[in-house]
């Protein structure tokens, strides 16, 4: 399955059907993330329910403390 992640097309295994599965596959390990799918923010805690489809445009960013 082809999905755009941070502007680049990535080939993901079939069955990567949710945002949670994508994050695990791409090894996003930081606890706090901004995740947008086709421009819509996915609430934290909803990653396992958020569906992913062929061609989706996903943005994922780590948030770490410091300011």
């Amino acid at each position, binding site marked *: 399955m082809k999905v755009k992640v941070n502007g680049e097309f990535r080939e993901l295994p079939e069955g990567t059907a949710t945002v949670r599965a994508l994050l695990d596959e791409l090894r996003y390990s930081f*606890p*706090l993330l901004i995740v947008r799918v086709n421009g819509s923010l996915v609430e934290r805690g909803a990653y396992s329910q958020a569906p992913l489809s062929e061609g989706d445009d996903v943005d994922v*960013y780590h948030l770490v403390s410091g300011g």
Partner: protein
Amino acid sequence: MTRDEYRRRLAGKTVGIAGAGGLGSNCAVALARSGVGTLVVADHDRVSRDNLDRQAYFLDQVGMLKVEALALNIARIDPAVRVEAHALRLDAASLAALFADCDAVVEAFDAAEAKLMFVEALLEALPGRPLVCASGIAGYGRPESFRVRRSGSLVLVGDFESEVGPETPPMAPRVGLAAAMEADLVLEALLI
């Protein structure tokens, strides 16, 4: 555009800044020097001695509310810049209310949790409004690791991994770099 044309356009703009610590105070000074007409700044904290290692305050301001000290410092740079100072701890509701009329809003919090609150609250409340955030600014060196990520109206700067901790304190150069990049991205959004 000439310098005067830039300044005339920026004088009519309002920028919100959530937090007046290392990112917020330095970003505010850069925007004030650029001629942005109104800055809406919110922070509940007071200036401490340790803050002086990276924040835009002075020794004789230790103990003052950061937003009050910042308003004074900006008035000394350019009294034509209006600073709306709010001494309060921001939450999702006050973020949306306070920055509703801003042309762009800067995230200048310390905690990652607060950064996410900013993004969640303002993407929802102010869809399409330019939002500029920072993530990953701790320590020193590796300036080439700083990147800009754009996701619609949301823009982020930083290296996205250097978290502040006991061995990686926030230090003036990298914090200042991130603050200046945030201010630069605000100008970009305002001058389109």
